């Protein structure tokens, strides 16, 4: 049945929506944006940049917290509470379940990001009483944050297929930090002059998700446009990386004994 992932996704979204922790995160994100307004007011001349900078950082950070902490528990919770047993006794393949869980969380993150993004525009309107043309670039920055969250969610889901939430959190955070500095890791290899180190660091660079490519917060805050080529490249990169991670997760999970 082709709509199985969609059925699971909608239920996962419904679970997140009914989960109070999620509302708390939105609340804190909105507080963060309110703080941006206050900081913006005391930052003479650069209030516009400060609001965008702080607002986008808040979206990114809270999204990251949600993606990791909900993502690592997605599969584990279903196994621990044995809700998965009755589900897999239905005509549901394990990859369909995983894909459904993934897109369910992604839908949650998208809705939350959209709410927070609306918060930034509200803050800008409140401070400037108008929106300018360059504010549209915020949407591209938010889209990149979403791509980044989609990548992190896939990685968190991958680890949750065979590990505990605690370890999965550590692994996913490790991937995120290493991925943020992926270019620097390759740079280290290049300046050492050692061919072996260069090959190794290049391999690490290509294996790790390159999160730095998605960070356009500072550029957006200064009102610069994001090149269309970068949008296309980041979209393709995220799609391919996520596809590969979900395939690996499905392969592992499909062979796992659910004790």
């Amino acid at each position: 049945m082709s709509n199985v992932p969609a059925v699971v996704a909608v239920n996962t979204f419904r679970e997140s929506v009914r989960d109070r922790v999620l509302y708390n995160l939105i609340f804190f994100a909105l507080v963060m944006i309110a703080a941006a307004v206050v900081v913006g007011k005391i930052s003479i001349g650069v209030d516009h940049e400060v609001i965008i900078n702080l607002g986008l950082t808040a979206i990114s950070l809270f999204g990251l917290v949600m993606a990791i902490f909900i993502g690592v528990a997605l599969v584990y919770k279903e196994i621990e509470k044995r809700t998965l047993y009755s589900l897999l006794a239905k005509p549901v393949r394990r990859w369909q379940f995983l894909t459904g869980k993934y897109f369910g969380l992604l839908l949650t993150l998208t809705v939350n990001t959209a709410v927070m993004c609306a918060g930034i525009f509200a803050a800008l309107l409140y401070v400037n009483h108008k929106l300018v043309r360059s504010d549209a670039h915020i949407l591209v920055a938010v889209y990149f944050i979403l791509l980044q969250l989609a990548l992190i969610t896939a990685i968190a889901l991958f680890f949750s297929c065979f590990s505990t939430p605690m370890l999965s959190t550590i692994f996913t955070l490790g991937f995120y930090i290493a991925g943020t500095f992926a270019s620097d890791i390759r740079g280290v290899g290049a300046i050492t002059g050692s061919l072996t180190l260069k090959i190794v660091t290049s391999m690490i660079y290509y294996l790790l998700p390159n999160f730095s490519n998605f960070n356009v917060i500072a550029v957006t805050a200064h009102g610069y446009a994001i090149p269309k080529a970068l949008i296309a490249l980041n979209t393709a990169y995220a799609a391919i990386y996520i596809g590969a991670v979900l395939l690996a997760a499905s392969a592992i999970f499909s062979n796992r004994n659910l004790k």
Partner: protein
Amino acid sequence: MGSAAIEIDGLTKDYATGFWRKKRRRALDGLSFEVKEGEVFGFLGPNGAGKTTTIKLLLSLIFPTSGTARIRGRSIDDVEMHREIGFLPEQPYFYDYLTAREFLDYSAQFFGFNAAERRERVARFLERVGLATAANVQLRKFSKGMMQRVGIAQAILHDPPVVILDEPTSGLDPVGRREVRDIILDLKKQGRTVFFSTHILPDAEVLCDRVAVLLGGKLQGVGTPREIMAIEVQGMEIHFELAAGQPLPAALANRATPTGSLYRLEVPEAQLYDTIEQLRGAGARILSIAQLKPTLEDYFFRLVGREKGPAYSIDGSVK
């Protein structure tokens, strides 16, 4: 009853244990038997006997070390076969943020019913398991018995020919047990095959056409409850009364249990006629003589208490 609904052939499951996962623990050892279409089949054994392991193997929640199984002629590896089965897990726990109606609607969506069909089915099965009034209550507020009933509803709402229930009456109060038993009997009336595991033996005695007994991962026997219980003759039970002031024969004095003016006596079958003569000689009035029939519980306790021996078959259905 005719062809096999469930065929299990040499199912074996080993788990890796120890820090290096190099040791092996055998949870199930060469299990083979068949469940016929339309029968209520009890899968008995104490905790840790391998009942849930078997059920998990049938549902491909875990994978066998060796052996195969088929349900209605289709391999257990075939996920599409799951359209023909319904499953209630042990101590069911479902999405507690959903109401009973939402949960059943969610379950029905995996079987391709459209919205109107789902509405009708969900309402019908909520009524059938006695939860119509709790349809809009979140599952987190459900009692254990209610959870069990909603679990049964999700297992049968697509009308599967084979229903697999893992400990369906475990942890329920007498009323809850009775309700679940009635649902199982109802399923049998509809011609469905019901395969359920239990360690509550009176339930198996009341419900099952046949039972299989599992101990330490090994099949101990398969047969009707009557066949299982008739393995060993237990003896004879005599109820009698004595005239006032009449003493008991010395040979029986230590063996007879007085209950008011009546006595109860258990004797081996071979000694029945000698005992009757002795009682007649003492002027006793014999009220009843009955064969002592062992219960499934007796059989079970004997199995648990004895040394682990080779599996033996009781009827021809054991492979």
